[in-house]
C-alpha cells in the first residue's frame, strides 16, 4: 500500500513536471531559446517554432525536451558551438543545426554532449558543422534519424559526423552522414550498436573506430568514402550485414582491420572496393558468408594474422581474390566459392575435388613490384599464373581451400 | 602519241632496258619483236607504268606519265597471261572494269559477241582455259574503244578461229587510225597488219622501220623473212 501511494505521488509529480510547456518563436512571448531555457525547469518541454535563431552557443543545462516545429534553424555563424548539452535526459528533435564554429582546439560541435547520459538526438538536420554530433563521456544515448551533411574538402578542415569518445551504451540508428572527415568515429566506446546508418562520401573513413570493444555494427551502408572503414585496436566486434562499396584509392579499404581480435564479420557485402578487406595483426576473426564482388583485392591478409577463419564466402569478379606478403599461412580458407576455380566435381558433392589455391602468384609479384600491373592479363602472365596454379612453386602450397564450392552460395 | 626518252630499267643486277628512245604515232600498227627476254614485256609494262623506270621519261600526248594514271583511259591492254581474281565470274570482271573506268561512251562489245563469251559469262575465272582467259583479256582491251591498243602476244593460246576474229578486229581498229602495239616472237599471222616493226635485242632497239622500207630492202615478200634477212645483213 505504501508502495502504491508513492507510485501515485510519483505519477502526479511527473505529470506536473512535464506539464510546463514553453513556446519560443517570433510570434510568442518568448523569442529566444536562451530566455526559454532560463524560464524552464527540469522535465519541461520547449517547442521552438520556425525562425532563424542566432544566439551563439545554446547551453542546455536542464533536463528538458527541445522540439523544433517546422524546422527552426539554429545557426552558429561559424563562430560558436551551436548546442552544448550539460544535463542528463535531454531530448533534441526537429531542428536544423548549422554552421558551428571552426576551430581545432575545443572541437566545437553542432550538438555536443558533455559527460552526460540518456540524451536523445533525433530527427534533426545538421549542415556545415565542424563536428555535427559530438559525444564525450556519454552514456546510454540515442542518436537516431539525423541527416548530417558536411562540406569538407580537406581532412584537417572538418571534423567527424558523429564523434563519440569514451562513451558507453550508445545507439546510433538510421542516420545519414556525408561530407565529414569520418562519418562515424568511435574511440573508447563500448557496448554500443550502430545500426542502419548510411555513411557516404566522407573524406576519410565512413566508419572509424579504435579501442572500442564489444560493439556491433549491423545493416549499415558505407559507400564511396575516401578510405572506407577502419577498425583498429579493438576486441569483440561484430559486423553483420553491412555493405561496403566503392572505397577506391591508394590505401582505401572496404574494411581495414588492424590489431583486431575475436571479431565476427558475417553476411557483409564488399562491392567494388580497391581492397575489400585488409587484415593486419588480426587474430581469431570469423569471416563468413560475405560477398566479395568486383573488388581489386578481395582479401589482403598480412602474414602477421593468425587463426582467422575465412569460410562460406563468395568471391567473384575480383581482380585478385587474395594477396599476402609472406609465406606463412596460419589461417583457414575452406568452403568458399571462388569464381576463378577451374576444378571439377565428379562425386557431385557440390565441392571441387581438387583444392583451390586462391593466392595468385602475380598478386604477390605486384605486391613487391607495383608497376608489374602493366602486364597483368597479358598472355605471358596468364601462362605464368596457370602454371603456378597447377604446380605451386613460389606461392605457399598450404594456402588453399580444400573444399572449394562449385556454385556460389545464395547470400 | 607516245614518246620514250632514255628509258632504263634494271631488275637487280640485270639491265633489262638500256636507253630506249622511241616515238610512236597515231595510225601506226607496230610489231614489237625480238627473242625471249629481250625486254619487250618490260617496255610495255613501262608504258602502262606497271613497271617503274630507273631513268628516262615516257610521254603520252606530250605529257609525262610519271605519277599520272588518267592517260590509261586511252589505252587498252591485253596482257600476255591474263590474271584475274579467281572467284569472280567473267561477267563480274567485265562489269567491275566497266564500273571502275567510268566510261561514258558506247562500249565496244564486238569481240564479246564474236568470241561467244555471253554463253560462258557466269563461269568463274579460275575454271577457264588459257584460251578463254585470253578472249576475256582481248575483249577488255577493246571494250572502251581506246586510242591506243597494247597487245602482248595476243594470239598465243588462241585457237585459229579466235585468232582470225582478233585479227579482223585489229585491222578494223587500225583503219580507225589508232596506235596499235603488238608484241610477238612469231609474226606470221599478223604480218600483213603491221605498218612498222621494232626489233629488240638485249634491252636495246636494233631497228625501228616501216614495213615497206623493210620489204624494199630485202627481196622477200614476207615481213618475217625480211626481218631475218635484215638481222643477218646487220650482223655481217
Amino acid at each position, binding site marked *: 500500500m505504501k508502495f502504491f501511494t508513492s507510485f501515485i505521488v510519483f505519477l502526479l509529480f511527473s505529470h506536473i513536471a512535464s506539464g510546463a510547456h514553453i513556446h519560443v518563436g517570433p510570434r510568442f512571448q518568448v523569442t529566444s531559446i536562451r530566455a526559454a531555457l532560463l524560464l524552464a525547469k527540469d522535465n519541461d518541454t520547449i517547442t521552438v517554432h520556425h525562425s532563424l535563431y542566432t544566439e551563439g552557443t545554446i547551453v542546455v543545462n536542464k533536463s528538458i525536451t527541445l522540439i523544433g516545429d517546422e524546422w527552426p534553424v539554429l545557426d552558429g555563424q561559424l563562430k560558436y558551438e551551436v548546442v552544448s548539452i550539460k544535463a542528463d535526459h535531454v531530448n533534441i528533435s526537429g531542428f536544423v543545426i548549422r554552421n558551428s564554429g571552426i576551430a581545432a582546439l575545443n572541437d566545437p560541435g553542432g550538438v555536443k554532449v558533455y559527460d552526460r547520459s540518456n540524451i536523445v538526438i533525433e530527427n534533426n538536420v545538421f549542415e556545415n558543422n565542424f563536428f555535427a554530433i559530438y559525444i564525450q563521456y556519454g552514456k546510454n544515448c540515442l542518436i537516431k534519424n539525423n541527416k548530417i551533411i558536411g562540406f569538407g574538402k580537406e581532412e584537417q578542415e572538418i571534423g567527424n559526423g558523429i564523434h563519440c569518445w569514451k562513451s558507453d551504451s550508445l545507439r546510433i540508428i538510421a542516420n545519414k552522414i556525408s561530407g565529414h572527415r569520418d562519418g562515424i568515429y568511435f574511440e573508447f566506446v563500448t557496448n554500443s550498436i550502430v545500426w542502419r546508418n548510411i555513411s557516404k562520401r566522407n573524406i576519410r573513413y565512413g566508419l572509424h573506430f579504435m579501442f572500442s570493444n564489444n560493439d556491433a555494427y549491423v545493416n549499415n551502408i558505407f559507400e564511396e568514402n575516401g578510405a572506407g572503414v577502419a577498425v583498429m585496436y579493438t576486441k569483440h566486434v561484430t559486423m553483420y550485414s553491412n555493405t561496403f562499396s566503392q572505397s*577506391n*584509392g*591508394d*590505401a*582505401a579499404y572496404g574494411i581495414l582491420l588492424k590489431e583486431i581480435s575475436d571479431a565476427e564479420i558475417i553476411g557483409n557485402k564488399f562491392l*567494388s*572496393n*580497391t*581492397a575489400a578487406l585488409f587484415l593486419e595483426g588480426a587474430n581469431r576473426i570469423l569471416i563468413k558468408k560475405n560477398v566479395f564482388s*568486383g*573488388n*581489386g*583485392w578481395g582479401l589482403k591478409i598480412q602474414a602477421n594474422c593468425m587463426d582467422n577463419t575465412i569460410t562460406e564466402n563468395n568471391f*567473384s*569478379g*575480383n*581482380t585478385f581474390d587474395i594477396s599476402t606478403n609472406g609465406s606463412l599461412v596460419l589461417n583457414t580458407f575452406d568452403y568458399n566459392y571462388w*569464381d*576463378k576455380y577451374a576444378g571439377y566435381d565428379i562425386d557431385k558433392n557440390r565441392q571441387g575435388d581438387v583444392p583451390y589455391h586462391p593466392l595468385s602468384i602475380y598478386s604477390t609479384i*605486384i605486391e*613487391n*613490384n*607495383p*608497376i*608489374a*600491373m*602493366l*602486364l*597483368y*592479363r*597479358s*598472355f*605471358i*602472365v*596468364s601462362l605464368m599464373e596457370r602454371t603456378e596454379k597447377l604446380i605451386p612453386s613460389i606461392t605457399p602450397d598450404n594456402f588453399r581451400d580444400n573444399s572449394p564450392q562449385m556454385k556460389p552460395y545464395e547470400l | 602519241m607516245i614518246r620514250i626518252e632514255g628509258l632504263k630499267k634494271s*631488275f637487280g643486277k640485270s639491265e633489262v632496258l638500256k636507253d630506249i628512245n622511241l616515238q610512236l604515232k597515231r595510225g601506226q600498227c607496230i610489231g614489237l619483236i625480238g627473242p625471249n627476254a629481250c625486254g619487250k614485256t618490260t617496255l610495255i*609494262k613501262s608504258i*602502262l*607504268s*606497271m*613497271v*617503274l623506270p630507273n631513268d628516262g621519261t615516257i610521254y603520252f600526248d606530250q605529257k609525262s606519265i610519271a605519277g599520272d*594514271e*588518267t592517260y*590509261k*583511259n586511252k589505252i587498252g*591492254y591485253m*596482257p600476255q597471261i*591474263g*590474271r*584475274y*581474281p*579467281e*572467284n*569472280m565470274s567473267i561477267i563480274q570482271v567485265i562489269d*567491275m*572494269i566497266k*564500273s*571502275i*573506268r567510268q566510261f561514258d561512251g558506247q562500249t565496244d562489245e564486238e569481240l564479246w559477241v564474236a568470241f561467244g563469251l555471253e554463253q560462258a559469262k557466269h563461269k568463274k575465272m579460275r575454271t577457264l582455259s588459257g584460251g578463254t582467259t585470253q578472249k576475256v583479256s582481248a575483249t577488255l582491251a577493246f571494250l572502251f574503244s581506246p586510242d591506243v591498243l597494247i597487245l602482248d602476244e595476243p594470239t598465243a593460246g588462241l585457237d585459229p578461229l579466235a585468232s582470225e576474229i582478233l585479227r579482223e578486229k585489229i585491222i578494223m581498229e587500225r583503219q580507225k587510225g589508232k596506235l596499235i602495239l603488238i608484241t610477238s616472237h612469231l609474226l606470221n599471222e599478223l604480218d600483213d597488219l603491221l605498218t612498222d616493226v621494232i626489233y629488240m635485242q638485249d634491252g636495246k632497239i636494233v631497228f625501228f622501220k616501216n614495213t615497206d622500207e623493210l620489204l624494199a630492202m630485202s627481196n622477200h615478200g614476207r615481213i618475217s623473212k625480211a626481218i631475218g634477212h635484215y638481222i643477218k645483213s646487220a650482223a655481217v
Partner: protein
Amino acid sequence: MNKITNFIITDIIKNKIIIIYTVILALFSWSVLSLEDNTAKAMLSLLNIILLAVPLMAVIFSTIYMYNSSEFIELLVSQPIKRKTIWLSHFAGLSISLSIAFILGIGLPIVVYSPDAAGFSILLMGLFITPIFIAIAMLCSILARDKARGIGIAIMVWLFLSLIYDGIVLYLMFQFADYPIEKPMVIMSALNPIDLARIMVLLKVDVSALMGYTGAIFKQIFGSQIGWIISLGLLTFWIVIPMWFSLIKFKNKDL
C-alpha cells in the same frame, strides 16, 4: 576507291574462312557470355580472344589475301586507277570485312549481354586491333615477294607483339626493379599495340584494383582524358605507319 573496296568486301564475305571465323567468334562469345553468369569472367575470356585470336586471324588472313590478290592488283594497275587507291581500297576492304566479322561475332553478344564500359572497351579495342594487324600484314606482303616467307614474317610479328615483347618487358621489370622504371615501362607497354589495347580494357575491367597505389601510374597516364586520346592516337599510329610504309613500297613496286 569505293567500287574497288566494294568488290573486295563482296569477295571476302564469300570466302569460307571469314564465315568460319565469324561463326567461331560468335559461338565462343555467345557461349561464354550466356553460360558464364559472371560477366567479369566472361569479359576476360573475350579479352584473351581480342589479344590473341583476333590479331592472329587478321594478320594471317590478310597476308594470304594480299598474295592471292596479286593478279587482281596487276589487273587494276593496268587500268586508269591510282596505285594509292588500289592499295587503300584493299586495306579498307579487308578492314571493313574483318571488322564486320568481329562485330557480328563478338560485338553483338557484348551489346546483348554486357553493354557496359568494359564491354565497349573490348569492342573498341578489337576494332583497333583488326586494322592494325591488317596494316602489318599488308606491309609483310609487300616486303617479301615469296608468299611463304611473307606469312612467316607476319606470324613472327604477331608472336613477337603478343608474347615475346611482354617477356622482355617482364624481364626488364625484374632486372631493374630497384630503379625508378615506371616511366620507361609505361612507354614500352604503350608502344606495343596489343599491350596498349589490353591496358585500355584493364582500365575498365579492373577499375577497383587500378584505383590503388598500383594503379596510380595507370590512372595518371592512361586513365585521364588526355591519356585516352594519346592511347587512341598511338593505336591509330599503328595503323597509319605500317600502312604508309607499305604504300610507299607499293607505289614503287614493279608488277
